């Protein structure tokens, strides 16, 4: 018997090798509809239907922006990081799994003519399989405020609902200008955004989404004072000594989880922490936890809310 296996197993595998290398499968027939070329944020040029009818979004931001552009999807990610209104609207739409591990079988079985993903390895990995099935996929990075507006406009062209898209863009722009108007003429706030926890943290650089909003509101990000600010990385580990020297007016925290405990706890943690308690922001109780949905992930159409919140925290005197 061992002799049989000794020969049998390699021979079986060799046959499989032959089949895999020289076998041919029939090609996929794709329906001929009007096409357009779309360049996604990774620079890939993708042939997609001029007016996609069956769209699947793999993450919350894309779903949010596609609806803001007057579109509808047939498959959605398993997520709750969306506004209550939108969650109600998409309640009955089939789920295709978590953003970081979407279910390929489910996606293909829904027969989409366009899939919207993010610029991350777990979605890049889907590209070869979906291409074989004749399904185009767009990978969108959405790293900053401008990219939100731009993406809504682009999606508006796809849905054919350009008016709706323009209305959404105008609403967001109005919310942001309201925020900016409140702070006109105020003294520049010096802020630090921490990503992580007071024990293990990185600082948000101008390249991050939160850093981008600080710049937008004319606040000074103390992380900018470091040499690392010119690098491409959105979050950098920096020494407490540097932060103590920069002594920001406001410290804001973004945690990795959506755990919404009040910022009271965070304030107390820093006040008890020997390294942090001497800083001006801690003494003046100007440390706050930012909501996960608005700052840790791209807030999409909620960016207006994020800006309003940030204005209140950076310039408390501007509230009224």
């Amino acid at each position, binding site marked *: *018997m061992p002799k049989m296996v000794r020969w049998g197993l390699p021979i079986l595998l060799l046959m499989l090798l032959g089949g895999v290398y020289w076998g041919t499968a029939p090609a996929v027939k794709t329906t001929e509809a009007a096409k357009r070329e779309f360049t996604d944020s990774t620079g890939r040029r993708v042939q997609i239907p001029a007016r996609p009818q069956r769209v699947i979004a793999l993450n919350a931001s894309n779903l949010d922006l596609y609806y803001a552009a007057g579109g509808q999807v047939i498959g959605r990610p398993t997520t709750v990081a969306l506004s209550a209104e939108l969650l109600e609207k998409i309640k009955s739409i089939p789920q295709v799994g978590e953003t970081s*591990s979407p279910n390929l079988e489910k996606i293909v*079985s829904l027969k989409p003519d366009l899939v919207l993903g993010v610029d991350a390895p777990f979605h890049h990995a889907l590209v070869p399989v979906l291409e074989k099935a004749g399904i185009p996929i767009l990978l969108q990075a959405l790293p900053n405020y401008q990219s939100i507006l731009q993406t809504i406009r682009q999606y508006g062209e796809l849905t054919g609902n350009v008016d709706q898209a323009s209305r959404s863009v105008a609403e967001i722009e109005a919310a942001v200008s309201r925020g900016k108007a409140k702070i006109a003429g105020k003294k520049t706030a010096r802020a630090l955004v921490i990503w992580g926890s007071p024990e293990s943290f990185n600082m948000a650089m101008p390249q991050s989404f939160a850093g981008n909003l600080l710049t937008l509101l004319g606040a000074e990000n103390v992380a900018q004072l470091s040499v690392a600010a010119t690098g491409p990385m959105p979050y950098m580990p920096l020494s407490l000594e540097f932060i103590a020297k920069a002594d920001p007016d406001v410290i804001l925290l973004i945690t990795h989880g959506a755990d919404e405990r009040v910022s009271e706890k965070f304030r107390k943690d820093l006040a008890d922490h020997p390294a942090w308690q001497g800083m001006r922001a801690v003494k003046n109780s100007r440390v706050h936890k930012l909501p996960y949905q608005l700052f840790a992930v791209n807030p999409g159409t909620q960016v207006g809310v994020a800006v309003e919140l940030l204005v209140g925290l950076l310039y408390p005197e501007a509230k009224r």
Partner: protein
Amino acid sequence: MKTLGIDPRVDLRNWILLGGAGLLLIAVLLGVSTGAVRVDIGEIIDTFRWSADVGENYQIIYNIRIPRVLVGALVGMNLALAGVILQGVLRNPLADPGIIGVTAGAGLAAMAVLILWPEQTFLVPSVAFVGALAATGLVFLLSWQDGINPLRLILAGVAVAAFFGGGMSALMVFHSDKVQGTVNWMAGGFQGRSWEHVRMILPYTVVGVSGAMFCSRYLNLLNLGDEAAKGLGVPVERVRFALIVLAALLAASAVSVAGLLGFVGLIVPHLTRLIIGSDSEYLTPCAAVFGATLVVLADTAARLIFRPVEIPVGVLMAFLGAPFFLYLLRKGVRK
């Protein structure tokens, strides 16, 4: 006078081997016929007819499910064999593909691509393979002393793994926002594996499995100790080197397509040994078959339990496999 008879356990072992092969077949069929989307047996058969008009679920069966199940089986086979060979050659029960630097090298190479050049994700298997072999080469170089000294190899492996691990930590700290993209690969899994991946791993499986089948006798002899093996005419240094290279190729090809799937290479050889004994002539084919079966079954379960959400197969395997292994271990001790 008592004649030299055949070991009475041979029959039992043959049956276990046959049973394992049958189980693997069932696992593969189960893997192909179940998933997030329900398909008929008829549709699966139609897939192999190469007819021009393809059924509704052709894409799902042919381009998603079959390659995924095949990759799982081949990865399980490779990792289990690499484990058997390394544990035998190094005569160390804790030896697994991580010990010769494969895991660390592949991990750092893959992570660098996933974090720094995510748009080149398709390169990950090749890069991981090169990284694994580079790290193994480094371990070989460091442990070389008129041939490979097992103790030096293990220590060099630990040092190289620590060095590469430092590189991974650095990448994680400086790109904390992109770590999420690497988590799936680090945990190991078969999400989105296609025919490209089958083509990538299969040649190494063929070479590795053939090599392991025909070298199992040497594994038995090496188990007697270097001196005894030399006395029996085994060119110990050369055989040891060849076997470790074989294990490195098996493990590197497996890790490059499946990610860091740790558990299989360490546990499956022990599991097989508990079931069938430590005669390498039975141990190697049996471990190959069991490894393949375990991975295919675990991957199928990982897809099904919370569908359409998938659990990383490595996590599932550790949760189910470790208690089962402990159970076998206790049962074995009592006997």
